[in-house]
Structure formats: structure tokens, C-alpha cells
């Protein structure tokens, strides 16, 4: 066990910090369009600096960073208060999925514009009636000449309004059960048959969209991984879902906590032992979250698979973020409930943490069944 950075990790971090210092991301602008433009511009700068696909192999234009370096990358991004690159789904999910399942032609065609943010990707998995249950999805694709015609509805597609490509899972064979008969497509979003409707959240913002697909056309060459193989390809995408991103979120949590402690110290609230107790607890949780995430990475690096600790990180993060933002309402006072203020936004936004990317209930089931080996819940 050695928790110091290796020479290589330290060099990676120092180089990144230097670059970030020389290339400050600037302030987040108001408004969704402007925010998106900012993030696309940010990714372009990352790309020019060679930092867009840190975890991608060098042959695909990446930096070939190790898992640990990738984690450091996202931590440092968070620490520099930089945004996530605009094409985060392409970088984290789409690219790695293509690298596993794509043909050479597909990789040549699609990977470069992912890196450069020329083409933004979104994810079309969830459906209104399927929720966490991929096997229940209803979007249908039928053969038509040398392509496919797709109809259905998707939900929780973030960035859809800015995307060129959608990773779409659809049912191509209705006669075989459940997760058989699914196919993974790349759907061109620039067609009339695809309508994007923003899904307003309880924060009043629309980070997500609904997608209405009415006879959209997808050519045959946009099937990824073969017809009927969609379940497996989708699993590759899902397995990449939280790699790295967790470190970004965890730094955000740490920043929020530091902010709250600062305010509590300034207002005198920190002198209340009850507040000190809660903040101490949040500190412990936040640190343990970070340590446990690194333990998970270490296990993958050394044994090729995560240990039991890996599955706990997202759950601990969402719990802690919800506790923190609720405590803020007690510590900060009226400000924390005032519309448009950061704490008020965080309080509302945090309610989604235990739902998005796997509900806490599902995560606990996964821990119990896959990690602890309990018999399948009924």
C-alpha cells in the first residue's frame, strides 16, 4: 500500500495543473445555450492542448492515461472549477463503446469528431415506461431496404438538443423475449423525424430531454456490434458510465462542503456543536468517498476488477450530497431557500442524485446480489 502518487502520476498532475493554470476555464455564463457553447469551447481548448480524451488510447487520439491518471484528470478539472467537456457522453461512453464494438470504418468516421467536439453525442436508453429496466424498452426498429425505420420515445437524454448522434437502443425483433432482440444504433439527430422536448426538472432547468422518434431512418452501417446484440453493447456503455465522472462529482462535493464550512465559520454557526458535528460527519463522508473511490481504482488496476468498494461510491455520494445541501438550509438561513441562489439550486438538484444513473434502491440491490452474493431479490 502506498498512497503517494507515483512519479508518473505526479508528473501527469503537475503538467495538467500547469496547463489549467495557463488555460483558465472562466466563469460559467448564464443561460443554457451560452453554457453549452462555453463547454464546447472548453472541450476544443482541451482538445488542442491534448487533454480531451485523456483515457483514450493514443492510437485513437487520446493520451493513453491510466485509470488513476484519469481520476486525477477529473479531480483536477473539478478543482479548477472547470466544466465537464460538452461532449462528455461521447468521450466517456460513445468512444469507448465504439472502440470495443465498432468496425474500423466506424471508428475512423466517428472517433475524431467526438474528441474535437465537432459532433456531440447523446444517449437514448431510458424510456418512460422502462425506467431502470432496459429489457422492457419499447422503441421499435424495422428493416426497410438497406436501413432501418425507428419509432418510439426516449427520456432523460441530456444534451439531445445539441447532439448530432444518439446512442439508441431499439427492439429489432419483437418475437424474442426481453433483452434478446435489441440492437444498438447510432441515430442521426438532424432529421425531422426526431423531436427533442426539454424535460423541465424541479430546479426549473432542463438538463434532460424527451425524444420523440417517429419513423426516423438509420442506415445499416450505423448498427453498432451487430443486429440483435444491443444488450451486450449497451452494457459496455453502462459499465463506462461512471468511470472518472465520480471523481469530478466528488470534488464538487468537497467544494460545496468547504463553501458551507466557510460560511458557517463566518456566521458563527460553526461554534454551535450541533452544526460542527454535522459538518464533521460530512467531512468524514466526503473523505471516505474519495478514499473508497481510489481504493476501487487500485483494485481494478491491480486485479483487473473492482473490489466490493467500487459499487458503494455513487450511493455514498448521493446520500452525502443530499445531507449536505439539506444541512445548508439550516446553516445558511434564508439565502439557502431563495430562488436562484446557489444553495437553493443545489438543494433541489441534489434530490435527483439518488435517482439518476441508477436509483439508490437499485444500487443497494446490486451490492447485495453481485457483491455479497445474496440470492436475487424477488
Amino acid at each position, binding site marked *: 500500500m502506498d498512497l503517494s502518487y507515483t512519479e508518473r502520476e505526479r508528473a501527469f498532475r503537475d503538467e495538467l495543473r500547469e496547463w489549467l493554470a495557463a488555460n483558465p476555464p472562466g466563469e460559467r455564463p448564464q443561460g443554457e445555450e451560452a453554457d453549452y457553447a462555453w463547454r464546447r469551447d472548453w472541450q476544443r481548448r482541451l482538445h488542442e492542448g491534448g487533454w480531451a480524451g485523456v483515457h483514450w488510447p493514443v492510437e485513437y487520439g487520446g493520451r493513453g492515461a491510466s485509470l488513476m491518471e484519469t481520476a486525477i484528470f477529473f479531480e483536477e478539472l473539478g478543482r479548477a472549477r472547470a466544466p465537464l467537456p460538452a461532449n462528455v457522453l461521447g468521450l466517456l461512453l460513445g468512444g469507448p463503446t465504439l472502440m470495443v464494438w465498432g468496425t474500423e470504418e466506424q471508428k475512423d468516421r466517428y472517433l475524431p469528431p467526438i474528441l474535437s467536439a465537432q459532433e456531440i453525442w447523446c444517449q437514448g436508453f431510458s424510456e418512460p415506461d422502462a425506467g431502470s429496466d432496459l429489457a422492457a424498452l419499447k422503441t421499435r426498429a424495422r428493416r426497410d431496404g438497406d436501413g432501418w425505420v425507428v419509432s418510439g420515445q426516449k427520456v432523460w437524454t441530456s444534451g439531445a438538443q445539441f447532439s448530432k448522434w444518439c446512442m439508441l437502443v431499439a427492439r429489432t425483433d419483437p418475437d424474442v423475449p426481453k433483452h434478446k432482440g435489441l440492437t444498438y444504433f447510432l441515430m442521426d439527430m438532424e432529421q425531422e423525424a426526431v423531436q427533442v422536448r426539454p424535460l423541465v426538472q*424541479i430546479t426549473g432547468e432542463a438538463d434532460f430531454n424527451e425524444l420523440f422518434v417517429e419513423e426516423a431512418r438509420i442506415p445499416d452501417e450505423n448498427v453498432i456490434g451487430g443486429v440483435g446484440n444491443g444488450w451486450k453493447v449497451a452494457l459496455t456503455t453502462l459499465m463506462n458510465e461512471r468511470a472518472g465522472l465520480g471523481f469530478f462529482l466528488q470534488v464538487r462535493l468537497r467544494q460545496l462542503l468547504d463553501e458551507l464550512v466557510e460560511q458557517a465559520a463566518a456566521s458563527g454557526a460553526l461554534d454551535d456543536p450541533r452544526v460542527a458535528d454535522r459538518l464533521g460527519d460530512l467531512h468524514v463522508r466526503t473523505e471516505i468517498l474519495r478514499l473508497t473511490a481510489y481504493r476501487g481504482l487500485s483494485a481494478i488496476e491491480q486485479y483487473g476488477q473492482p473490489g466490493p468498494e467500487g459499487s458503494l461510491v455513487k450511493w455514498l455520494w448521493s446520500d452525502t450530497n443530499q445531507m449536505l445541501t439539506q444541512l445548508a438550509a439550516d446553516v445558511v438561513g434564508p439565502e439557502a431557500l431563495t430562488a436562484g441562489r446557489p444553495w437553493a439550486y443545489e438543494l433541489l438538484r441534489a434530490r435527483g442524485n439518488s435517482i439518476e444513473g441508477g436509483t439508490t434502491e437499485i444500487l443497494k440491490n446490486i451490492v447485495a446480489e453481485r457483491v455479497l452474493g445474496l440470492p436475487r431479490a424477488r
Partner: protein
Amino acid sequence: MRFTLTDDQREIQRTARDLLANRSSFEKVRAAAEQGPDEALWRELCELGWPGIAVAEAHGGQGLGAVELAVLLEELGYACAATPFLGTVLAAAAIEHAGSDAQRERWLPGLAAGELRGALGAPGELMPDAPGANVVVVVDLAQRTAAVADADAVEPVQTIDPTRRYGRAPAGGEPLEGDAGPAIDRALVAVSAELVGLAQRALDMSVEYVKERKQFGVPVGTFQAVQHRAAQMLLDVEGGRSAALYAAWTADADPQRLPLAAAMAKAWASDAGRSATASAIQLHGGIGFTWEADVHWLFKRAQLDSAFLGAGAAHRARVTALTRPT
């Protein structure tokens, strides 16, 4: 000893539930969030004499008690109704229980009739229904004093709950001469009752949803984790109801016990309201996190109610102080 409501009280409850179900759907709540309080509904409540339900008949009220008021507030919370009812009844209670005869005569008939609107809260804090109020009572929670502040000095604040108008009032104004303790405690009971209503609605909507919503081929309500969360919400609701009804009863029947009872009710209801409405979002899954699912209105109002006049911790401290062995 009889904890159940009397027939008259049940009649008030039923009337309120039916009326609000018809007149204060979430469609109306959403509209109020955009356009301000539901004036038509408020007029209707005034015609029914609700703002004066707990005000003495001598001052133009109905002369009923804190229990009846709690029953109404629970229903208004249940509907998440967008009216200046809460502020008005709190101001009336303060003036009735801490004001001089002259102050009562001056303000109570108008408040009881709903012709005057009221608000009550601590100076500088978020005060519900303060913008647009004619009678703004500022209370000092530590000193347990109250005064009628300059209503024009109220500064509106947009909170995360746009279905109710909030503002900040400065300290000072025309003092109410009596002990404001009972008025503050009555306010705690009233807002606890509203929190119970919010939590009950959160539970009812969740139960309905998880019975229908299917995942993995079965209603999600068959999952034990969902069942247990719903059971916890019931405990939140029923515990709060026990405490709020008891505290309301002491206000009129056994005022010596009111301070402790009110602190207990607000301590529980503050946490239970937060927790039950957050659970409702969770039980609705992704849908619950969307604007159109409507459960967020309950969560947002519960957050404001929870903080109003002190959240759980403040009242737990008071419970301990009041029960400290001498």
C-alpha cells in the same frame, strides 16, 4: 379522553377537503406559482369565514378553536393551496392573544373577515404571505415579544416556493403589549399542521403512483424497499398529526402545556415534512424529479415551512430546556 375529532370538526375537515379538491388542483397551484395567490379561492375561503375560524365571536370570528384551525391548515397544506391564509390567521392569533383591546378592535374584525391580510414572522427571516399583507406582526423568538411592523417596509423575496409570497420585515413597530409566547406557540402549531397536510399528500400521491407504476414487470409498490419507505412516510405523517392535534388542543384547553407541546410538534413536523416530501420524489423515480409531476411543490413548501420559526434542532433544544429537571 378522546383523540378523535368531533362530528363538527369532521364536518369542517370534509368540507375543506372537498372544496379544495375542486378549487385548488395542482393546475391552480401551478398557475399561482406564475401569477401570484389564487384570489378567487381566497375570496371563497373568506366567504366561508375560515380566516376567522379561531377568532372570538366578539371580534367577528367564528369562535372555534385551535383544533379547528389545525384541521383547516392540514387541508390547505394537503392541497398546497396558494392563498394568504396562513399569514392572516397567524397575525390574527398574535393580535388576539398578545394585543391590547384597542389593537384587537382595530385589526381582528378585518383579519377575521379576510378584508385585511396578515403575516407573522421573525424580522429579517423569510415571512410567509408578507408581501401584500396589511398587518405584519414581527416576533422576537427569544424575548417572546411581538410588534406590528410597517407593512410598507416589507421587502419581497422570491423563494423556491413560488406558490406563496415571501418577504422580509424589519424589527420594530407598534408593540403588542401582552406576552407573545402563546401567539408564537400557536403559530408553531399551525405551521406544523400545514406540514402534516403536505406530508399526507406526499404519501397519498406516492401510494397511488407506486400501485400503478411498473418496473421489471410488477408494480413498484410490491418492492419491500418501496413499501418500507411508504411506511416510514406514514409514521412521519401520523406522528406529526398526533403532536399537532395535541398541541392545538392544549392551546385552548390546557395552555400551560402549550409551549412544550408546540415545540414537540414543530420539532417532529419540520423533519417529517422534509423527509416525507423528499421520499415522495424518490418514490416517483425520474418522474418525481420533473416539474410536471407536482410532488416538488410539496417538497418546496415543506422546506419553507420547516425553516419557518425555527427548524427541528431549534425546537428540540427548546423541548430539552422546557423539560430540564430543576
